[in-house]
């Protein structure tokens, strides 16, 4: 069994055909995970649970009652609450937290027979673009710059997920995307990552970062795998008031590769100053490939694009500052030790100072500031109005008949761990420049591996779909994937 070439689609068919059992498949991944500590992709490993789940999957396979995801070994981002399994959002403040409940997304996956290998490393509370804010230490990309052994970031915040999928430490992983946290690491590691339309996937049981932006999605090796896994992750959830009560299409069935007559928009505002030529070229080639496949390439304008990042960095921290108020040392997780005479306020302040890392602290404080008396209108309200304008930009181009929008996924290839350490936070925030608009507008987006840079590192392109247009968007992504024939894999060094 060559895990490096295996996909969900292959494994599904092989398991059903009885070529191997879910237990054998799971064991192969358990072994791979066991030898992967250098990547620091897994924050918690659950091999026994995995094998139990695999045995149950084998029963279903034997009984002929096997959904697509049955017996498929997955890694789960540490942001998803998993019953009885440590869930910390890669934060010290949730030290030892074992949820007494299972998130809706993971419940859907387990109900379909999928197997959990463990929990995946990430940026603390999903705040970061390089996995360096993790309390567990950063996940390391399996990719390297040729023979240079500089440790590279797998991106973030779903960095552990990206590292694990690209290093074949699981067949696929769950991720979450608030400003690009699925698509950027997918692009950095040469895999596919989908951020669904806001409301497509339930947020219940996923540790909240910014509620109006957060959305979970699959991170897989191929577009087809994403289509298969996304279908299982989606459901209308009465426990999430923002979950959409609309039917979930068969995304895989939509993958015909036929995109003739589709209109693909190329937004001029995404051509940023100082964009590396390689990215520019990749983008251009991507458009040419889609054109060759029969799509019409249309130049479009999304005039408020440049305001997306500042708007995002008002809205996301504002929501986060409120969402993270519950981490106060009372109900779960870390509680600071007090000196004699100290009281509840010291308990709160020290617990949160010890429990949150610097980036989380910074965002919580920025969020508190932009919501505070006298600044709400100037920052938060203004940002939400700009957000309306950003959404209207998209509504206009879609109303003009554009089916999908093609953009680069990231402004660069993966960078080295620590390389951005001295940069100011804004420089790190710029990683999200192509992806945040999608979250602000609540749209679906997918990152597809499209090539490698001069150092051999993967680069991705992003397709942005219409609201609820995941099926059509994935079909275009599928056509792009076919045309790009990206086959690069990291050389195993760990």
């Amino acid at each position, binding site marked *: 069994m060559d895990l490096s070439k295996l996909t969900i689609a292959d494994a599904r068919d092989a398991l059903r055909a009885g070529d191997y059992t879910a237990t054998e498949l799971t064991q192969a991944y358990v072994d791979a995970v066991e030898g992967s500590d250098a990547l620091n992709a897994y924050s918690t490993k659950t091999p026994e649970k995995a094998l139990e789940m695999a045995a149950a999957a084998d029963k279903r396979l034997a009984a002929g009652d096997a959904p697509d995801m049955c017996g498929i070994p997955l890694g789960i981002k540490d942001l998803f609450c998993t019953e009885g399994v440590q869930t910390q959002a890669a934060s010290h403040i949730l030290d030892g937290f074992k949820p007494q409940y299972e998130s809706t997304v993971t419940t859907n996956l387990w109900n379909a027979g999928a197997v959990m290998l463990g929990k995946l490393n990430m940026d603390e509370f999903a705040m970061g673009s390089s996995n360096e804010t993790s309390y567990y230490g950063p996940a390391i990309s399996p990719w390297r710059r040729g023979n240079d052994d500089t440790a590279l970031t797998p991106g973030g915040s779903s960095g552990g997920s990206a590292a694990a999928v690209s290093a074949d430490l699981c067949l696929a992983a769950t991720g979450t995307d608030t400003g690009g946290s699925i698509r950027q690491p997918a692009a950095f590691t040469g895999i596919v990552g989908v951020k669904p339309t806001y409301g497509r996937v339930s947020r219940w049981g996923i540790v909240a970062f910014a509620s109006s932006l957060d959305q979970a999605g699959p991170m897989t090796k191929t577009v087809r795998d994403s289509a298969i896994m996304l279908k299982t992750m989606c459901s209308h959830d009465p426990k999430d008031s923002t979950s959409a009560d609309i039917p979930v299409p068969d995304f895989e069935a939509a993958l015909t590769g036929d995109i003739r007559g589709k209109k693909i928009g190329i937004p001029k505002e995404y051509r940023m100053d100082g964009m590396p030529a390689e990215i520019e070229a990749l983008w251009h080639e991507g458009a040419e490939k889609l054109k060759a496949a029969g799509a019409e390439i249309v130049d479009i304008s999304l005039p408020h694009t440049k305001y997306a990042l500042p708007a995002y960095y008002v809205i996301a921290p504002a929501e986060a500052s409120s969402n993270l108020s519950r981490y106060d040392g*009372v109900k779960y997780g870390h509680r600071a030790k*007090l000196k004699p005479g100290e009281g509840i306020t010291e308990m709160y302040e020290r617990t949160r100072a010890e429990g949150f890392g610097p980036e989380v602290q910074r965002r919580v404080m920025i969020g508190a500031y932009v919501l505070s008396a006298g600044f709400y209108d100037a920052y938060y309200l203004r940002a939400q109005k700009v957000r309306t304008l950003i959404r209207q930009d998209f509504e206009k181009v879609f109303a003009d008949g554009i089916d999908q929008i093609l953009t680069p996924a990231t402004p660069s290839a993966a960078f080295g761990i620590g390389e951005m350490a001295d940069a100011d936070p804004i420089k790190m*925030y710029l990683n999200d420049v192509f992806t945040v608009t999608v979250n602000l507008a609540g749209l679906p987006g997918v990152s597809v591996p499209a090539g490698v840079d001069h150092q051999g590192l993967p680069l991705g392109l992003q397709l942005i779909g219409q609201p609820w247009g995941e099926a059509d968007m994935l079909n275009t992504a599928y056509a792009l994937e076919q045309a790009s024939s990206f086959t690069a894999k990291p050389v195993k060094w760990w």
Partner: protein
Amino acid sequence: MSIDKDTARRVAHLARIEVAEEALEPLAASLSKILDFMEELNEVDIDGVEPMTSVTPMELKRRVDEVTDGNIQDKILANAPDAREGFFAVPKVVE
């Protein structure tokens, strides 16, 4: 928009995060930098624009008034740093 040391102290307290006195200046500087970045938003003409209130245009669903949950004291307290006699215990609160 620049944040001074006193504002940094106030914001840290508002967010209930302990910041050492000597860390306040650097904190103020770093917060100021981020706020400067947000200043760009002032260029946008937002006259007559409604703030975004729901990401997807849906109706808020309402649930039926039934008791469907609760009686899980053990689960509620399972992760508590200090639970006693069915309560969460916290350092004395003075009202």
